[in-house]
């Protein structure tokens, strides 16, 4: 990224002051994150902190109540299909493959928006159609090779082992040729070996020029993977910074592990005293 560009376009993806209110519940409150070119940004936080809600705002599944999401300075539309066309792809927390399609077909669906054949060409299968199909298949096979699923392309997706399903979901997302890839808990349910393989895969994804945002509970994984980490607690960004800064921040420890015992005890005593006081008054 050259320094000549103005600041807004230095970041590939930028969320500014995103607020998401469901009825009376404020799921996200004035959240801002930014993703630099070729960076890996981690998003951690306790359950219910609003991580997936933020992802849904970034991918157009939700329209933020306030705030804006920009890709290279351009506001993203609030339609998942258009967001994907614009260059933001995602995976899901609970794997959402097309279970009864083959591995190759799953990736080919990812190629959908980068293919041009219309309905008429689809009916007649002319030479142009076949060329496009062959190119899409080749690209898909390259992606399967990339994530390490080569040789399983004709397997039905639901028959794949769990870790392979995760990788297939990533290959499918990469098939849309994204600039930004959003991974929602990519290592959930994985053993240490699989987690390490996933880490290497994410590095390689970054190396081919895709910027990555990762949601993960596994803090060790996040700290060894990301360039910057944002901690989301109760819908707000608590801390943002390099892994080492975030790791040592007492507020993060508090959010994850709770307060030190003495402090909690003191608070409880204080509350008890207040109740006692209230009783005496009445």
């Amino acid at each position: 990224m050259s320094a000549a560009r103005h600041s807004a376009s230095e970041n590939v993806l930028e969320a500014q002051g995103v607020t998401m209110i469901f009825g009376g519940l404020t799921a996200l409150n004035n959240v801002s994150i930014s993703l630099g070119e070729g960076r890996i940004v981690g998003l951690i936080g306790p359950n219910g902190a609003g991580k997936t809600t933020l992802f849904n705002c970034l991918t157009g599944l939700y329209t933020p109540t306030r705030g804006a999401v920009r890709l290279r300075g351009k506001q993203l539309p609030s339609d998942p299909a258009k967001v994907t066309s614009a260059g933001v792809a995602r995976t899901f927390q609970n794997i959402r493959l097309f279970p009864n399609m083959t591995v190759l077909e799953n990736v080919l669906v990812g190629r959908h928006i980068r293919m041009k054949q219309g309905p008429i060409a689809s009916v007649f299968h002319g030479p142009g159609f076949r060329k496009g199909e062959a190119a899409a298949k080749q690209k898909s096979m390259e992606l399967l090779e990339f994530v390490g699923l080569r040789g399983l392309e004709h397997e039905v997706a639901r028959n794949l082992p769990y870790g392979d399903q995760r990788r297939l979901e990533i290959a499918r997302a990469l098939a849309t040729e994204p600039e930004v890839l959003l991974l929602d808990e990519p290592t959930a349910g994985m053993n240490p070996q699989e987690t390490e393989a996933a880490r290497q895969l994410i590095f390689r994804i970054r190396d081919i020029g895709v910027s990555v945002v990762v949601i993960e509970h596994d803090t060790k994984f996040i700290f060894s993977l990301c360039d910057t980490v944002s901690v989301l607690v109760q819908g707000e960004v608590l801390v943002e910074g390099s892994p080492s800064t975030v790791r040592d921040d007492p507020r993060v420890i508090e959010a994850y592990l709770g307060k030190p015992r003495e402090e909690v005890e003191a608070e409880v005593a204080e509350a008890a005293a207040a109740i006692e006081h209230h009783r005496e008054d009445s």
Partner: protein
Amino acid sequence: MSRLNGLIPAALARPFTAIGGVLFLIAAMLPWATFILNDGAYPEKSTLQFFDAPFELTGFRWHLLLFGLLALIVTFAPIPGKNRVLGALGWGGGLIGAVGAAFIAGKGGGIGAITAADGTIAMGSIVAIVAGALLKIGSAATGPGDIPEWPTSLFGWTGMKQRLEAWVYLLVAFAGVLWLVAQTLTAGGIGGAAFPYAGPVFIAFLGFAGGLLGALHGIGLTRWVSQLSEKHRPFSIVVLLLCAFALPFPFTGAGSQYWMQVAATIGVYAATAIGLNIVVGLSGLLDLGYVAFMGIGAFVAANLSGVAASALGWNLPFPLAALIAAVVAGILGAIVGSPTLRVRGDYLAIVTLAFGEIFSRAAQNDIGDLTGGASAMPGIPPVSMFGTAFNEPINLLGAELPSGVLYYFMIVLVVALVMAVFANLKNSRMGRAWIAIREDEDAARAMGIRTGKAKILAFLVGATLAGLAGAIFVHKLGTASYDSFKFLESVTLLAAVILGGMGTIPGAVLGASLLFVLPEKLREFSDYRLFVFGLALVLIMRFRPQGLVPDRIRRAEFAGETAEGKSIEAVEEQAVLEQEQSEREPGAPAGPKEGRS
């Protein structure tokens, strides 16, 4: 059935199947034997047309005899996949017996006739049922076993020789298919007052055909043939078309005017069912008013073909009228499909149901003077091309072909066209988008698919094909009546798609054939027709929810995924096991099988 697995010790498997085979032979010969032993008149009440020649081995008894011999041979010969073969024979023979028993109990001498004394044939039927059960249990004792793989060339040939060898096999196989189709079509003869036995004979024949196909599948033959035909696709398509065109010729026995008419009707519904399969099978959109599009095509074509009852008074040549009918139906399909942007699942079904009902009521009341109302639109001229009216008999290749055969030929071509459209769409960017929407709509949108547009397109294509089929339908029939396009027809088409197997061409064709040939055959049961349909559907959903010709298994087989002959259940079980294993892996913070919202 897995529940039968291990019901008896493995050591008893062979005795069971052997006894089953012997009992089939006894069942086949019992009527004859009692007749001889009693030295009396053949009991008239229990005499069915298909049993009435005690000394001849025809129909029912010939089939049972064959199954019995096969069961004995398979039991003692070293044949791979024998358990599947025996199981299929058990099912088929049991069904033949059950049909005979049910018919004699109901229409013969009553329930009391099921004794050796006054209902010898019923006795034979009971024996056949028992034999079928024994075979089924015996074959399940040691598990279904693997379906054997056959080499592409049985002689290890390669290149041109291998190709020629495969062509010979395919020719033989498709000739067999032609024979089976002709036999099935004509089994039991023409039903009605003249011949009340058509229904039972037909169903018994289905039992025979099913048992035979199941046995062939068990030894891996059907899979081998389908692999060969997949490999030599163009050749197979040409031969299949030739076989379809050969059906009316005298040597098949199906070449009468009546059977041609039945076959043409089946063809029309098969084409419509394939169109519906795009909407329901590929895109997963439940459409309960689909037949309305067929009706729209039918009435548009009727109005454009110079019918006296039409207010338009146009008289266009058939191809043009059919084209316009298809286009109009397609446009209306897109309009009806647009609410699908907003509603999903059950709600969509209700919207389409309402549309179908609106169409049928509007047509009944002749809104806009376009449908003729309750008096219908009679007098639609027959299709006439190249100076030949399609309802005239013709002379082709030295054979005198009955009237209506030209319609049959046209419909064969249309069905082939519709199949090609379906297959091409399915294996394209659009088809994959539809399947993706069916599988997981949110994930499909996350892949950039404009789901709204794709759904409307599915409705449009499906309705266009239905409109085309409707145009042919009314020209063949000569009358366009709202009565042909009611809710029941929609349901039957949907049942055909589900019964045959969603998303496959052979499934839709098989389903349509069964559901539209059965009423023809079961005329004397017309009061129970819907009951039988419902029962059949419930049973299919219980025992074979993927349909008769399922999609994924076939595909997986071609890809070599279940090449070891594993059943898909086994593969699924394994997948579940693996998932559970990964759940139990240390360091897994969340279970992988979290429920989807």
